Structure formats: structure tokens, C-alpha cells
């Protein structure tokens, strides 16, 4: 009886692991398949699952995508857009979050509510107005003071980055974190004659590291993922980001044989995010739970 029960649990446990294994396999098979096909020559693209591990590895698809299809340039643009907008977001949102959490000033609640309210507006709803504002930006890209005559900030890094240099979510996340830090720290620093900005920069900011890292990861991921905004605001080939480049590139390929180059291009888009995720894994999950679940 006892022996049977033991065996029963062992079999049950084994089944459980097999089930989990199948599950994990299905979650990651698209990645494995992508990498596998990206390492094959055009003639072998149509092989079935049994050829998951390619026999003759070739890096030609990567060369074709990176050099031939200009993905190196798209990569650089994406890094500039993503890192640029993330840095702005981190600094402005941390400073704003601190101000809302710790400083007292008239209109504080009203302004904070305004920022919360704008969090509820979907990105697509802002697309046309943002496009028009960037296009009619005064004194840029041949525009006069009234924003007429030129193309404004269309097709520039500034045009790409500026509308995404702060987010309501970022201000909210930072405020929630700063509110929980002890008020005494600030009082003590004040008595020592510390300026408000130094209190923020040298005392509070280092303490807010978990929130900053979480926000950095979120912002970076969202920006890397962005398609619509870069699609409408960039026009020349030299300004495209990876997402736009990949979308246009795949639209030009219509044969089965080109799937290896497309998969190589997709791998180039995916790899940086996977690396960031694997390196900062702990912060990813922590950040997700920081974002609003607690309190």
C-alpha cells in the first residue's frame, strides 16, 4: 500500500515534468525555429522540423540582412531612439516623481491628476496630433516662426524622440516609490544646507534604484517595440528604425527562398531584447510587480 502510493506520486510527478517540458518546448520553439532557419542556405529553408539543427551552417543570411538590407543602419537608429528617449524619460520622470512625492506647492494634486488622466489615452489617439506638431514645429527643418514652409522635425532624431521623452506612467511609478522613502532623510540633509536638487540627485536618486531600473527596462522594451510612430515620422531609408526596416523588408520579399534572410533580420531585432532580459531577469519580474500591484 505504502509502496504503491509512493509509486503513484512518482509517476504523477514525472507526468507533471513531462507536461511542463512540452509547454516550455512550445513557448520557445518559434525562437529555435527562427534561429535555425536563419542559419540555413536558401535551398534548405523548406525543410521540416526534423532539420531543426541545421547541417550546413551558413552566416550568409546575416550578412545579407546586416549589410545588404541596411539593418546595421536601422540598428544604430534604434539604439539612438531607444537609449535617447529612455535616458530623457528616466531623468525627467525621476525628478518629476520626486517633486510630486516630496515637495509641497500649489496645484500639486491637480497637476498629478492631469498626468494620471493622460495615461489613459491610447498612443494611437495621439498619433495624428503629434505628427502635425512635429511637422509644424517652428523654426525647424525650414519652417518659419508659424511652422509653415518646411518639414519641421519630420525625419530627424529630435522628432522621433521628443514626443516620447516623458511618460505619465514613469512619473507615476517614480512618485509611488519616492513616497515610501523616509521623510527624515530630506529633513536632515536640509538642516545641513543641502540644496533641493542635490538632495534629489545625491541622496534620493541612489535610493530609488529599483524603481529606476524597472522604469528603464519598461521604457526600453516599449521603445524597441514601437512601430507606428517611427513609421509615420521617418521617411528616408537612413532614418528607419529596426521595426520599420523589418516591416518594409518583409513586404519586399515574397519568395519562400528569402525566409532565411528574413529570419536573420528578425533575429537581429530580437537578440538585444533577449540579452537585456536574460541579464536583468530579476529586475524584470520585480519591476512588473512594482508597477502598481503593491498598494
Amino acid at each position, binding site marked *: 500500500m505504502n509502496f504503491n502510493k509512493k509509486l503513484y506520486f512518482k509517476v504523477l510527478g514525472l507526468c507533471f515534468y513531462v507536461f511542463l517540458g512540452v509547454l516550455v518546448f512550445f513557448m520557445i520553439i518559434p525562437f529555435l525555429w527562427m534561429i535555425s532557419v536563419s542559419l540555413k542556405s536558401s535551398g534548405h529553408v523548406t525543410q521540416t522540423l526534423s532539420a531543426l539543427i541545421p547541417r550546413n551552417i551558413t552566416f550568409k543570411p546575416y550578412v545579407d540582412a546586416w549589410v545588404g538590407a541596411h539593418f546595421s543602419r536601422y540598428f544604430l537608429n534604434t539604439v539612438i531612439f531607444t537609449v535617447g528617449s529612455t535616458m530623457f524619460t528616466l531623468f525627467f520622470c525621476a*525628478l518629476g516623481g520626486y517633486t510630486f512625492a516630496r515637495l509641497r506647492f500649489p496645484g500639486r494634486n491637480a497637476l498629478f491628476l492631469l498626468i494620471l488622466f493622460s495615461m489613459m489615452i491610447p498612443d494611437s489617439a495621439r498619433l495624428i496630433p503629434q505628427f502635425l506638431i512635429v511637422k509644424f514645429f517652428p523654426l525647424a527643418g525650414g519652417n518659419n516662426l508659424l511652422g509653415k514652409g518646411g518639414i519641421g522635425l519630420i525625419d530627424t532624431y529630435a522628432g522621433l524622440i521628443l514626443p516620447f521623452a516623458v511618460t505619465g506612467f514613469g512619473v507615476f511609478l517614480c512618485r509611488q516609490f519616492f513616497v515610501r522613502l523616509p521623510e527624515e532623510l530630506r529633513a536632515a540633509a536640509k538642516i545641513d544646507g543641502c540644496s533641493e536638487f542635490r538632495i534629489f540627485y545625491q541622496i534620493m536618486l541612489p535610493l530609488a534604484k529599483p524603481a529606476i531600473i524597472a522604469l528603464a527596462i519598461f521604457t526600453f522594451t516599449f521603445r524597441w517595440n514601437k512601430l507606428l510612430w517611427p513609421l509615420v515620422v521617418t521617411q528616408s531609408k537612413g532614418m528607419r528604425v529596426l521595426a520599420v526596416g523589418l516591416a518594409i523588408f518583409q513586404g519586399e520579399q515574397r519568395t519562400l527562398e528569402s525566409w532565411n534572410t528574413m529570419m536573420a533580420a528578425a533575429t537581429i531585432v*530580437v537578440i538585444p531584447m*533577449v540579452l537585456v532580459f536574460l541579464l536583468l531577469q530579476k529586475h524584470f519580474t520585480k519591476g512588473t510587480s512594482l508597477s502598481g500591484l503593491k498598494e
Partner: protein
Amino acid sequence: MFKKGRSWTSLSKRESRNAYIFLSPILVLYTLFALIPIGMLFYLSFTEYSVLMPSKWIGLENYKYLFLKDTVFIQSVINTSYYVAGTIFPTILLGLLFAMLVNRPLRGKGIIRSCIYLPYVTPVIAAALVWRFLYEPFEGGFINYLISWFGIKPINWLGTIRWALPSIMVMSIWRNVGFSMVLFLAGLQGIPERYYEAAKIDGANRVQQFWHITLPLLKPVILFVLVLATIGAFQVFQEPYIMTEGGPALSTITIVYWFYLMSFRSLRFGRGSAISLILAMMIFILSIFYLKVLKFKEE
């Protein structure tokens, strides 16, 4: 007394001044790229406007056109609703299931979690392209190869009206399930172990424990995931853009997709604004609805 009072006011004045200085970059960018756009959106939705010509006020014409004459818009609303309903519930249920499977002492727990979360960190555009390849109808196409084990003939997944949208939905569920799993895991770990112990002593079985402890305590998390998933799903665009281009026969055209075509291909900014405003309203009303309905039940 007097001196103390004066120094206090000058201190608080300085604090306000500092606050406004600190907030100035946010306020400028915010006014320019968030507040003014909202006003513009309302205005533009009542006009006929392409960048080339000055805008012309036409009242409710855009809305009338969209609801009464634009069959593609109606189709996009139907498709999007179908997509939202068909993705968020499986995403939430599977996310909860996976969270409960992984939330126990397991060998390789970290790796399993990472594998489930990995799709969520991949850019949609790349994931959509990979899945288009998996759905390819040729002989070695991965999904058709899989179903051939069960004796099912190859199906042209993305090329038939019946299967195109469901195929996209499966891909979206695959991509989002890790996100809801992580949120549910955080929620599960917040439930004190002693609740379950007490229930066990009272003779509650696993199912009863789930219904009477886990589920009620997870309610805030479920609500949170539901709202986030709904907001995300209503704005679906990249998946059909890459996988089907809205076809076949408009069976995968979505609201944001139609908004994009209307605004930036046909350059009808007025009508485009009306579409995006309608979408924003739909999301807003649904979020309020969730918050109200689920809050009431909780009490």
C-alpha cells in the same frame, strides 16, 4: 513669533519655486505632446483635413460617415472585438494556470519561468514574422507539419477568411501569456501560506481552496491584468500588418489598422482622428465598466 512665521513662508515659497523648476521640462513636453494633442484630436475629428489643404469644419460628418457608410470601419470594429474577447480570456486563464504550476518548489523553476516570459519581451514585429513562417502552407511549414501527425491535411492558415484571425489570436496569446503569469505569480506569493494550512485543517480540498482562497484574494490582480490586456488588445495593429495585411477579404482588418490606412495612406486626417477618438472612448468606457462591476462584486 513673527520672524519664525516669515521664514516659514519664504521657505515654502522657495520650495514651490523649486518644484516648478523641477517640473518645467515635464510640463512643457506634456503640454506639447499630450494635452494639446487631445484638444487637437477633438477638433480635427469634426473637420475635413489633409496636411496639404487648410482644415474645413464639417460637424459630425466624419462620425456619420464612419457609422453609416464605412463598411470597412464596421468590419474593423467587429474584428477587433472578436480579437479582444478571444485573446484576453485565454491569456488570463493560461497565465493563472501557468503561475499556479510554477509557484511550487520545482527543479529548474527559473528556467521554466523565463521560457514562458521570453515571448513577451520579443518585439511584436519579429514575433509576428516568425509566426507567419510557422503558418506557411508549404509542406515543411511547422504548424501544418505538426497537425499532419494527427492526420489533418495542410491548411492555408493566414490565407483563408475562416482561419486568419484565429491564427493571429493564437500568436498573441502565446506572446502575452508570460506577462499575465508574472503578475499572477506576484499575486500568489502575496497570499499567506497559513490561509491554506487553516483550510486544510478544516478539510478543504484543492478545488475548494482555489475557489475560496486563491481566487478571491487574486481579484485585484485579475482586474489589473484584465484592464491592461484589454487596453493592449484593442490597439492591435502590428500583428495583422505583418501577418496578413488586413486580408483575406478584410477578415483581419483592425481599428488601428484602418485608422493608419485612413490617416497616413489616404491622408484623411479628420476621419482618422474620428476613428482614434472612437477607439479611445471604447477603451475608456470598458475600463470604467471593469472597475465598477468587479469592485461591486468584491464587497
